[in-house]
C-alpha cells in the first residue's frame, strides 16, 4: 500500500497542473489557500514562469493596488470584443442560412422547370410518333381506291396471287357447280361495294346465313343426295357458303352459270385485294399495340370469305388472347379450326396452349 502511495507521489513530479486562476492568485498571496491547494499551486509554480512572475509582481503593494481594476477592465475589453465577434458571427450564420435556403429554392425551381420542359418535349415527340404511322395508314387507305380507279391493271397485278391461292377453293366449290346450284355461287357477293371498306363488312350477311343453313341442312333427310354433298362442302369450306345457299334455293341453267363464272372471279380478286390491304392495315395497328383498333378492323375482315377472313379470325383470336380474353380467343381459334383452312394447325396449336 505504501509502495502504491509512493508511486503516486513520484508520478506527481510530472503531473500537469493548470495555471492559477483569477481567484487563486490573490488568495495565494494572502495565504488563504488550503495546504493541499497551496501545494498544488506550488507544484505548478515550479514550471510556470508566467504565474511565478505574476506572483512576484503582485507581492509588491504598489502593483497590487493597480492590478484589480486593470484585470477587470482587461477582462471586460476581451469580453466586449468576443461579444461583437459573436454577434457578427450570428449575423453571418443567419445570412449564410438564408442564402442556402434561397439557393436551394432556386435549384429546386430550375430542376422542376427542366423536368417539366423535358416531359412536355417527350410528350410532343410521342404524339408525333403516334400520329405519323396512323396518318400514313390513313393516307395509304385513301390512296388505294384512287389508285385502283386510275390503274386497274396494276391492282389486278397486285391481286393476282390471291386468286391463284383461292383457286383451289373455287375449284372445290366448282364440283357443285356441275349441279344446277353452282352458277348461283357467285351472285351473293356484293359486286358494287367490293372496292369500299364497307364491302368487307357486307359479306357477313351472307356468311351467317350459310352457317345456319349448314347447321340446319343435315336434319332433313328428304333432301336430295346432291344437296347433301354441297352441304358437306360448305361445312368444309366456309369461304364459299353462298354457293350452298344458292344451290339450295335456285337451280340455274349451266349456260348462265358459265357466263357468270368469269365475272365473280374478277370481283373476288378485287375483293381479296381490298381485304389484303385492310388486313395489312389492321396488322399495323396490331403491331403498334393498338389492340382495340386492330380488333375492330379484324372483325370487319373476319366475315369476309377467303384467306383473309380466316387470317383475320386467327389474328382476332391472337388479339383477344393478348388482351387476356381467353374465352373469346378460344372461340375464335375454334372457328378457325372449323374453317379447316391453312391456319388450322396453328389455331389448333394455339387452342392447345390456351
Amino acid at each position, binding site marked *: 500500500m505504501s509502495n502504491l502511495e509512493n508511486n503516486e*507521489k513520484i*508520478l506527481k513530479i*510530472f503531473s*500537469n497542473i493548470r495555471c492559477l486562476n483569477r481567484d487563486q492568485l490573490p488568495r495565494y498571496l494572502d495565504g488563504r489557500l488550503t495546504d493541499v491547494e497551496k501545494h498544488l499551486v506550488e507544484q505548478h509554480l*515550479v514550471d510556470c*514562469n508566467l504565474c511565478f512572475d505574476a506572483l512576484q*509582481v503582485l507581492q509588491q503593494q504598489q502593483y497590487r493596488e493597480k492590478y484589480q481594476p486593470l484585470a477587470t477592465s482587461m477582462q471586460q475589453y476581451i469580453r466586449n470584443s*468576443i461579444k461583437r*465577434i459573436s454577434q457578427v458571427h450570428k449575423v453571418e450564420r443567419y445570412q449564410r442560412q438564408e442564402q442556402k435556403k434561397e439557393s436551394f429554392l432556386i435549384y429546386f425551381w430550375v430542376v422542376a422547370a427542366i423536368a417539366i420542359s423535358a416531359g412536355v418535349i417527350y410528350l410532343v415527340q410521342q404524339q408525333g410518333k403516334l400520329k405519323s404511322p396512323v396518318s400514313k395508314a390513313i393516307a395509304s387507305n385513301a390512296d388505294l381506291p384512287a389508285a385502283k380507279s386510275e390503274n386497274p391493271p396494276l391492282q389486278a397485278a397486285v391481286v393476282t396471287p390471291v386468286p391463284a391461292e383461292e383457286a383451289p377453293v373455287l375449284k372445290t366449290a366448282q364440283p357443285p357447280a356441275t349441279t344446277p346450284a353452282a352458277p348461283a355461287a357467285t351472285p351473293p357477293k356484293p359486286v358494287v361495294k367490293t372496292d369500299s371498306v364497307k364491302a368487307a363488312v357486307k359479306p357477313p350477311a351472307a356468311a351467317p346465313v350459310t352457317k345456319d343453313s349448314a347447321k340446319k341442312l343435315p336434319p332433313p333427310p328428304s333432301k336430295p343426295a346432291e344437296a347433301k354433298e354441297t352441304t358437306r362442302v360448305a361445312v368444309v369450306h366456309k369461304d364459299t357458303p353462298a354457293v350452298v345457299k344458292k344451290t339450295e334455293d335456285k337451280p340455274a341453267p349451266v349456260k348462265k352459270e358459265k357466263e357468270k363464272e368469269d365475272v365473280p372471279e374478277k370481283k373476288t380478286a378485287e375483293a381479296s385485294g381490298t381485304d389484303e390491304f385492310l388486313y395489312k392495315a389492321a396488322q399495323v395497328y396490331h403491331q403498334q399495340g393498338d389492340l382495340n383498333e386492330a380488333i375492330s378492323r379484324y372483325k370487319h375482315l373476319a366475315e369476309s370469305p377467303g384467306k383473309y377472313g380466316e387470317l383475320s379470325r386467327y389474328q382476332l383470336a391472337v388479339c383477344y388472347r393478348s388482351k387476356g380474353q381467353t374465352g373469346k380467343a378460344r372461340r375464335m381459334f375454334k372457328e378457325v379450326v372449323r374453317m379447316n383452312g391453312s391456319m388450322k394447325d396453328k389455331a389448333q396449336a394455339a387452342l392447345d396452349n390456351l
Partner: protein
Amino acid sequence: MLQQLTNLSDKELISRARKLKDQEAEGVLMERYSHLMVAVCLPYLNNGPATTPEEVYPALLQKLSASLRTQTIPKANEWIHYTIRAQQAQTEKNSPFFPSTESREQQQMENKVEKAATNLKEQQLLAATMEEALQKLPAEEQYFLKEFYLHAKSFAELAATKKYTIEKTRQILQQAKQKMASLLMHETYE
C-alpha cells in the same frame, strides 16, 4: 456558446482558433490568462512612449492573436510569457516562439504520466523508472524533489531548511525536474 468554450482545454481552444478561425475560442483563451498578463505587465506600464495600459494590453492581445495562427503552441503559458517578454524587450525582430528542449522533454514526460493514469501496471513501471532516474540526480536536487513531492513541503519550508530564498528554491526544483525529464527521455531512447 461561451459557456461551452470555457470548459475546453487550452489545446482545444487553440485548435479551434486555428483550424476553424473561431475568434470566440481565441477570446476565451485570452480571457483565461488575462489576469496573469495584467500582473506581469504591471512593472512595465507608464515607463516610456506607448506604455499606457490602453496601448500595452491591446497591442499584446493583437500580437498574441497574430502568433496564435502561425506558431506551434504546446503550452499556452510559456507562449504568453515569451510574447510578453518579447514585447517588453521591444525588439523589432519578431522571433517566433519555439519551446525549449527541456520544455519539450518535460511535456513528453507529463504526457506519459497522463497516459499511464488508467493502467496500474504502466504506472508501476513508470514509477520504478522515475525512482531510478531520481537516484541518479545530485544529492541536493534529490533532496529537494523528495521533500517537495514525496513529503509535500512548501517552498517556504524548503527555503527555511536550506536557508535559500523562495526563488532559489524554485529554481533548484525546476532544474532538478528538467534533469530528471532529460534522463528519463534519454533512457527511453537508449
